[in-house]
């Protein structure tokens, strides 16, 4: 990998023994997605300087996550129960389902406060070059939901990222869901191409949601 020597610079320096606890922690942080060597080191030293309680809380929550977090039976978002808090909330509008790529996108849309329907988390996007086809993300689960005899879903909002792969996924979903007779809408333009929902500001995202259009 191209980042090796940059990693070495940040990960190994400051520690003579390669297995020192701090190095282990830095390396653990660095193994996480989106955490570069610099960030990993910053996080590790932050923990080191923080009160013991923070470290204990972090360690316990890490273990709890691994032991207790499952995918929601209905929307595939992360939850500790059979159903997530959104799916359990009977005041939410169950006729509208908003489809997103990742759990973090649910958080982003919830922050807008504009959406009262339910979600469906795909856990990825169709990306054939990376070996990810429709069968590799939670599309079948979405179809089962839409097709279920008890379903009252009238609209599916496709809120995948405004990227090439996000659009391909949206078109694919539109095609298979419309076959089932359900209305499919897409977030309005306004989110810049190639950006990630996760980084969009609340107003822009809220507007894109309100001004969604039929696909």
């Amino acid at each position, binding site marked *: 990998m191209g980042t090796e020597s940059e990693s070495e610079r940040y990960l190994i320096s400051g520690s003579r023994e390669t297995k020192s606890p701090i190095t282990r922690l830095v390396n653990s942080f660095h193994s996480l997605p989106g955490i*570069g060597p610099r960030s990993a080191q910053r996080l590790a030293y932050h923990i080191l300087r923080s009160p013991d309680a923070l470290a204990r809380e972090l360690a316990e929550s890490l273990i709890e996550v691994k032991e207790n977090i499952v995918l929601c039976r209905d929307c595939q978002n992360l939850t500790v129960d059979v159903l997530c808090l959104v799916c359990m909330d009977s005041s939410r509008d169950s006729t509208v389902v908003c489809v997103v790529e990742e759990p973090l996108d649910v958080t982003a849309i919830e922050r807008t406060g504009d959406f009262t329907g339910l979600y469906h988390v795909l856990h990825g996007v169709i990306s*054939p070059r990376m070996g990810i086809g429709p069968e590799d993300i939670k599309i079948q689960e979405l179809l089962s939901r839409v097709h279920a005899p008890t379903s009252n879903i009238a609209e599916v909002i496709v809120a995948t990222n405004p990227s*090439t792969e996000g659009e391909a996924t949206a078109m694919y979903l539109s095609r298979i869901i419309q076959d089932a007779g359900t209305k499919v809408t897409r977030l309005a333009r306004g989110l810049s191409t*190639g950006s990630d929902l996760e980084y969009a500001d609340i107003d822009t995202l809220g507007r894109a949601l309100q001004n969604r259009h039929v696909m």
Partner: protein
Amino acid sequence: MTERRPRTYSTKAIVIGQRDYVDSARIITILSPEFGKREIVARGLLKPKSRLAGHLEPGTYCQLEIAVGRNLDIIREAQTIEMFREARSDLQSLTIFLYALDLADKFSLEDTGGELFNPLLTVIQRIAGGYPHSVSIRSFEFELLDSSGFRPVLDQCIHCGSDVPAEDAVWSPTDGGVVLKQCLDNVQRVSSISSRALKVLRAYQEWDFDQLVTIAVDSSLELELSSVMHDLMKTVLERELKSANLVEEVRWWQVSNDHVTKPN
């Protein structure tokens, strides 16, 4: 003596794809006529206000200003030359577009493949330009096979070398060509091929594009041709090609839609 590399360089390139990197940065795979396939970092790309945003989507033809990095080079400026909107406007075009990019990717190694730039640009222009998708993509496949030394043998038996009449041909993707029925036992994997599919493939291999677009290909023949060629590409590359599977899945919908009459 250490070789002195310039600190920045510029190139035209087609974006092959992107993948995750640190925070809002992405790693972009480009194909450049001068440098071939290369992975380059685009910092802050996922942020809505990124100057690079929209210029580095897969399939975009762009002008890049690149700084030499310690490991991976870094994109300083990106300017779209052509983003081929028409190729992205419907699912069928888009899946073929992504398949072409995938092929260019899988047929080139790091820092090689510059010779594939022009064929890739041409096939993308054709997909976006309203030419029949099947002819455009088959021509590109044959070009890739030729340039990588996997040109299939479509006239003579790959076992004995005798001429093969289209009616007596059996197809072997593993051996890269046709076999006479009596020579079947001497090749590895075989599958059937219709005589009209073989005749069209022979034309694809020999004729110019302008002539090829005049051949009438119905949808069942088109599906056979794509499945034969996709199988061949996967065999040559020795890997699964999800992009090819997606093209076939979407094409099947279209064809079955055309043939199904609405029940009363």
